[in-house]
């Protein structure tokens, strides 16, 4: 049987974080869809499971906003064309602002979850 990932020990991505993770992955260089999914999965030891079905609409959404640009290219030593996505300078800016928003949010949640005891 094909491996079906167990759901219990995997964390579903919060809405809106996928865009940020894609942009961050593309900061390392141009990637195609499958590589992006694998990179996110592998760098979190398979803890974060990218929903493959939502990855591609997300990529097109980013392309539409001109945060990434896309081009069909044939990688060296292969005879297949893949659609490679690249970070644009607008995308870099977007990544920065999303990163700081994410930091703010996690800090705010942390203050509720683990409040500093007042005495």
């Amino acid at each position, binding site marked *: 049987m094909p491996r079906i990932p167990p759901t219990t020990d995997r964390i579903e991505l919060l809405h809106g974080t996928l865009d940020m993770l894609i942009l961050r992955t593309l900061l390392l260089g141009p990637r195609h869809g*499958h590589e992006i999914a694998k990179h996110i999965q592998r760098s979190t030891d398979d803890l974060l499971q990218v929903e493959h*079905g939502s990855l591609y609409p997300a990529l097109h959404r980013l392309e539409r906003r001109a945060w990434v640009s896309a081009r069909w290219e044939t990688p060296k030593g292969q005879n297949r064309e893949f659609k490679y996505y690249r970070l644009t300078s607008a995308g870099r800016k977007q990544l920065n602002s999303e990163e700081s928003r994410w930091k703010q949010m996690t800090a705010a949640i942390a203050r509720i979850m683990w409040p500093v005891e007042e005495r």
Partner: protein
Amino acid sequence: MFSKRIFKPLAQRSVDPYADTARELQNHVDLEAEELRDAGVKGSDAECAARRMLGNQSLIREEIYTVWTSIRLEQLKQDAHYALRGLLRNLGFSLVAILSLGLGIGANTAIFTFVNAAFLRPLPIRRRSESWRFGNSL
């Protein structure tokens, strides 16, 4: 020169940015299947599993289609805005054009209304054979 200015943006817009989506998704399925085969899953099983992991492809393509069509609406809005600004920039010319169009349409409507009532519609009488016409004009 003028026609180029009009037709170039139209031509650019007619390119479907989502037309290659099927190919992109197929690439993904192929790569995933290869990976599964490397992990020891048998040929057709790997293909099926890869397809299943991606999910409903027509749904994905539809979602991508919406991503790109909503931008067309935005572009339409921008175009309308641009046209309006152009009209406001040559206010005198725009006013003359709008006035002459208005007068032309109005005059045509008025004349047609008269001709329609006088000549085209049948007279509002019940028994034609019992009615008489006086005078020799018209």
